[in-house]
């Protein structure tokens, strides 16, 4: 009896989740199938699967021939991974300080650091550009990394501080009595316990950085610093758009971020199950 109701529930839950997954994945699916079709076939029937009669790799050929797409990929990866690293490192350290130490203005400092969640960093674009010009960082990846680190920090600090409050005080105190430094306590005791939160923050932070068009366009539009999203724009013209190439470029752009996501989601799941059996 109870086995049957739980089976029914399982089916219902899976049906809902599958429906949601299909809705979420549909645009990606359309992009990927159309990237393998000829231009005429894309417009004739956008939902048709690539078949021998409409199969065409012209998009990928264009992308690989035109521009330096490998360089763009490399730029995107460098910017995303470096920003992610700094966001996680500085975010976690700030969160630890805010959640662990009592000092004057602790709450105020926390609010100040979280303010960035509500104020879009793009409002400051002009000022940022002026700073980058003044420091000679225009058209460097460093400029992008700095801006994205700043953009990702508020949410990271906010989420991680909440999680770090839940880490056992006794554990940290035991470390102090045993003579561990505050850095060792942070890196070896606290960080492993908030790994699921770190993975969540990593995913939240990574996607907007990878997809961003705004700051690469403004701060680093030079050929040698273009990111993938910016690079793909060369195929979108004011009058004609090379849809094959755009779709192919976008399909290719999905791959690296998918790999990163898989890495983090494994951490996420491992963290959750580790907590469950403890």
């Amino acid at each position: 009896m109870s086995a049957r109701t739980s089976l029914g529930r399982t089916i219902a839950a899976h049906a809902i989740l599958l429906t949601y997954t299909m809705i979420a994945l549909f645009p990606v699916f359309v992009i990927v199938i159309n990237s393998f079709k000829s231009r005429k076939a894309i417009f004739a029937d956008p939902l048709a699967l690539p078949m021998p009669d409409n199969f065409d790799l012209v998009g990928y050929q264009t992308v690989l021939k035109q521009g330096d797409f490998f360089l763009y990929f490399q730029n995107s990866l460098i910017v995303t991974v470096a920003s992610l690293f700094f966001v996680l490192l500085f975010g976690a350290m700030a969160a630890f300080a805010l959640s662990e130490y009592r000092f004057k203005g602790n709450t105020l400092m926390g609010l100040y650091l979280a303010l960035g969640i509500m104020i879009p960093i793009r409002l400051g674009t002009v000022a940022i550009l002026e700073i980058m010009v003044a420091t000679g960082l225009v058209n460097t990846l460093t400029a992008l990394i700095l801006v994205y680190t700043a953009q990702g920090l508020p949410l990271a600090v906010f989420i991680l501080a909440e999680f770090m409050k839940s880490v056992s005080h006794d554990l940290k105190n035991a470390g102090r009595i045993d003579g561990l430094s505050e850095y060792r306590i942070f890196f070896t005791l606290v960080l492993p316990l908030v790994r699921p939160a770190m993975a969540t923050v990593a995913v939240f932070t990574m996607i907007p950085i990878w997809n961003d068009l705004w700051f690469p366009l403004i701060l680093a539009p030079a050929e040698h610093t273009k990111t993938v999203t910016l690079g793909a724009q060369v195929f979108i013209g004011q009058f004609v758009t090379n849809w094959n190439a755009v779709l192919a470029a976008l399909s290719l752009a999905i791959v690296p971020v998918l790999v990163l996501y898989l890495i983090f989601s494994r951490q996420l799941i491992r963290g959750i199950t580790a907590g469950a059996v403890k």
Partner: protein
Amino acid sequence: MGALELRGVTKSFGSTEVIKGVDLSVKDGEFCVFVGPSGCGKSTLLRMIAGLEDATGGDILVDGKRMNDVAPAKRELAMVFQSYALYPHLTVRDNMGLALKQAGVAKSEIKVATDRAAAMLGLEPLMGRRPAELSGGQRQRVAIGRAIVRTPKLFLFDEPLSNLDAALRVATRIEIAKLHRELKATMVYVTHDQVEAMTLADRIVVLRAGRVEQVGSPMELYNDPANTFVAGFIGSPQMNFLDAASLGLPAGKVGIRPEHLTISRDQGEIPAEVSHVEKLGGETLVYARNPQHGLLTVRLFGEHDFEVSEKVHLTLQRERMFQFDPDGQRRR
């Protein structure tokens, strides 16, 4: 080697004063237990001794040396926590050896020390496991082992047994008593549990709202409580408090322990009605209500049959009663 002294120690969190001036001296080798209601500051006081919280005022001395500004790791003490607080990423052996490793002790010496502690607590078969692979009782023994390895001057325990089940609690309690005899170290122990306090302590410190109410050996507190708070706190079931004036005594309260009340169906000085009976086999607890004095507990040896709402009479053993003035202080 390990005498602890507190002089006028205070602690405030923001504007709330949690510890309001504690003076205490614990002799070398003594087993000192802090008891008191939840939130009275037992853990805070213990953490201050450990150096995990700064004292707002007063001095903390170990062997006559002021410790206020010494880092926790340098105070030569070990602490056992209620939640075990084992390092999840280290094996039992590494958990126990970490403090010595941090202090720069040679590997071979660490092995000798951990092996000796493991032998004392029967942990040898578990040395290679991680905390996640241990039961609650085993984890707590490892936590105690971790404390022993350091051969500290001072052991601090914060409710170490309260997460264990009843049988394991008794076993571990006996183990801690044995350790104290063997190590002859000074121990400060926080607990809620009456039995732990009475059986383990050389001296009990009763705390209330950040103040010391009374310090003494278990039997001193039991037989000679200074006020109604201590009288009510030490001893289980709780002492009965009766209205003194209606017994023909000076105004205030009269305290009498449940075992010093006699009950009779025919005659006695306080008429009452039985409201509940608890039979524990070896003893019987009768709860009887009197309109003037409220609910009174009587503890009888062996099995007795009393019906709920039966009329009974209670008598005080006058020589065993305690008299308190209206402020709750003992009349001497």
